[in-house]
């Protein structure tokens, strides 16, 4: 089947088998190996990418289901050569160890902060509860997301004009 998909802002057209999983399309066909495969059963979330605006487990999405849609992977998190605050925060707060779950965690974190700019710890934990990290015990992932929220809030504060009157 012919598939046209925009990944990290670049449009790709490929002939693929209907059964091809999105994770394998991204990794094997496009060479975007930052998204990882970990379990086959939608439990671990190492394969999380954003499909249009929503995080999905790309091991449970057929590539053809993404036809005509936009995908964001870890390779597209940085903008204009600048790391996303989430990426900076994961490194600063020791929010990763082996780094295998990290791309998926960061994509979920970015989605969360796009929707809930100042999440509570419970909201952060709920947001990443469909993803497994075997290294961090989650503590520093939560810290990382909090720090990214603070950095984004500060940047937004600087960017916003003074309220009138």
């Amino acid at each position: 089947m012919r598939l046209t998909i925009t990944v990290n802002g670049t449009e790709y057209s490929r002939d693929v088998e209907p059964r091809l999983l999105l994770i394998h399309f991204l990794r094997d066909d496009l060479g975007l190996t930052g998204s990882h495969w970990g379990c086959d059963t939608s439990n671990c979330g190492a394969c999380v990418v954003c499909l249009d605006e929503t995080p999905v487990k790309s091991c449970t999405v057929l590539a053809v289901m993404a036809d005509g849609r936009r995908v964001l992977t870890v390779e597209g998190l940085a903008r204009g050569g600048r790391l996303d605050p989430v990426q900076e925060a994961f490194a600063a707060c020791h929010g990763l160890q082996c780094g295998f779950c990290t791309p998926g965690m960061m994509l979920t974190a970015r989605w969360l902060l796009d929707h809930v700019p100042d999440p509570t710890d419970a909201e952060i934990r709920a947001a990443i509860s469909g993803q497994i990290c075997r290294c961090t015990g989650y503590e520093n992932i939560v810290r990382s997301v909090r720090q990214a929220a603070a950095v984004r809030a500060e940047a937004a504060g600087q960017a916003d004009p003074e309220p009138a009157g």
Partner: protein
Amino acid sequence: MTAAGPAAAYGAMPRKEDARLIRGQGTFVDDIALPGMLHGAVLRSPYAHARISSVDVTAARAHPMVEAVLTGADLAGQGLAWMPTLSGDVQAVLATDKVRFQGQEIAFVVARDRYSARDALELIAVEYEPLAPVTDARTALEPGTALIRDDIAGQRDNRIFDWSAGDKEATDAAFAAADVVVGCDMVYPRSHPAPLETCGIVADLDQVTGKLTVWVTSQAPHAHRTMYATVTGLPEHKIRIVSPDLGGGFGNKVPVYPGYLCAVAATMLTGRPVKWIEDRSENLMSGSFARDYHMRGEIAASADGTILALRARVLADHGAFNATAQPTRFPAGFFHIFTGSYDLRAAHCEVTGVYTTKAPGGVAYSCSFRVTEAVYLVERMVDLLARELSTDPAELRMRNLLRPEQFPYTAPTGWQYDSGDYPRALRLALEIAGYPQLRAEQADRRARGEYMGIGLSFFTEGVGAGPREHMDILGLGMADGADLRVHPTGKAVLAISVQTQGQGHETTFAQLVAHELGLSPDDVEVVHGDTDRTPFGLGTYGSRSTPVSGAAAVVAARRVRERARLVAAAMLEVSADDLEWADGAWRVRGDPEQSRGIAEIAMAAHSSLRLPDGVEGHLDASAVYNPPNLTFPFGAYICVTDVDPGTGEVKVRRFIAVDDCGVRINPMIVAGQVHRGLADGIGIALMQSIAFDADGNCLGGSFMDYLLPTAVECPSWELGATVTPSPHHPVGAKGIGESATVGSPPAVVNSVLDALAPLGVRHADMPLTPARVWRAIQGRPLRPDLAVE
């Protein structure tokens, strides 16, 4: 010389590894794609125990995308059908006679893409004659039980070994004289390390040079190289093992698996690179399990609460092949450290290892060899004793802990603990917890009919294997090398034998060297995971990186420093004896203005400067470190739970962990290691278990059934630290990678059982799932290892 202790280059610093990992630019094994690469897939047995009548691969070979199909018969022709295990047994690479566990490897398909390889597995026809499975270790030795290992000449039953440690007579005498004796049967269920990245390999035999390059998920690349050489007959210098970024290991990536050898055989056969990546079910069902110890513990004490003696009887389920990863002379690992942290008069343990029709393994899942099982046993027994004596478990522990002045302490089973201040660690944990207030709250809640538990554990680990005259794996002594090069501009490259799977070696080891040489950690590059570029060593597991390889790095750095001293003396035209190492430079005694740092010295060492006779120039040095002893990290943990007696649900409300791992090189990384192990403790105690049904079917074969903790099961960890340096490690450090996995499960279990005490529940086995807790409350506990009652 620099005294042991934290200094300039030590301390929390961001990790060097992270720059690539946060960009998705790491290189994991499955990220490697070579031109012409083929993809392998393994056909596995649906039966736990069956004779293979025939394997017909005709249709699979005819698949248009298939390049080769290997069977046991094919491998037998090359002498590769069986391979040595890490414990002196053999394991089938591809089955030729019988299958002995569900998921055992039978055939290997090599195709042009991964989906086709899987398709072709469906085309292989295997005829089986099912045999009786043996899934209950407790029946493995009963007369009439099926003989699993009929391939071993002279093997008449399912016994692997009998092993004991300690003084039986003295222990029996202490028990006979004791006022109080408490016993308990307990199971440490079969578990699995389950790193998020499964195991995999890319094997590539260069047809021209004859060099085999293997990218593989290995925690021990050098040991793997020697094993590949031994098994395949390829000369060892023609084998290069690259262990790139690893997505966790936790013991799972220590062994060589049949799939690896199939990929090697396939690249030799096809002349093309072959990739094999196991799926999650393969990882859980056939890769190395951990634990599976069926234990009877007994503890003896005087009426005043002085613990006198401990004994244990263990049935160790090793699965179908004895592939347990232990130093050769320790068939039950270091289980005989089971006297724990207490001042006992006598102890004795007996361990019997048995074969069952379950997956082989027995890896040290985030622990030193079998220390986890030992700590669980003693910490449960101490809690049971406290209940018997109606004594507070914290008070009973404080009363019996080893005292600081007893170190170095020789345990009744022979271990010599290097250093410790146990009461200090326990006091700190109690203080952080607010222990008296917690007990008061518990009393209030109990009065209201609420079930709150407070559980303690105090653990001593023995890590950093190990002294080579006592410890080897496959005959390879457990010493590790380090090579340190200092370039003319004073930038350094350290090559190490151990392998990071997330522990941050590239950062911590740079800090170790930088501290010794007065450099910035940014000026030290750490090379690891490539056997062509690094010195020999046994790899990363059992928390041995810092205790063994870290020590090698420090010794090499100190050799560089001594070489630099001679060059500095020539530069300053003084005697080397007149120089002292101070503030990261060689300085003339009494004349602080006259000093030279490593960068200046390195340039001089590579220059035309005339050097004294016998001084070679350059500064490079290497070392092999043979540790004189293990290091013995310890800690005090407290877990607070709330249990719903109606549903059996356990909520971990708080977890306090005080760890002492000696000198902390990078406290940020140390804390991260502890966080990881505490999550392990929640998982192992409450969720994770690989059980089997009566037919030998594995019931933990996916993450739908093998439950791992997520962010909502884990509380926010509360850490504390004490620092008692190791007297024999060059910088006073001890291992920390696995302490929390060892120490936390008994704290969780003790907490749940403390919560259930008013209901009369004395013991329940892990994992304490809602169903298991509820059944324990009903007085009808479920067995954790079997899906039968």
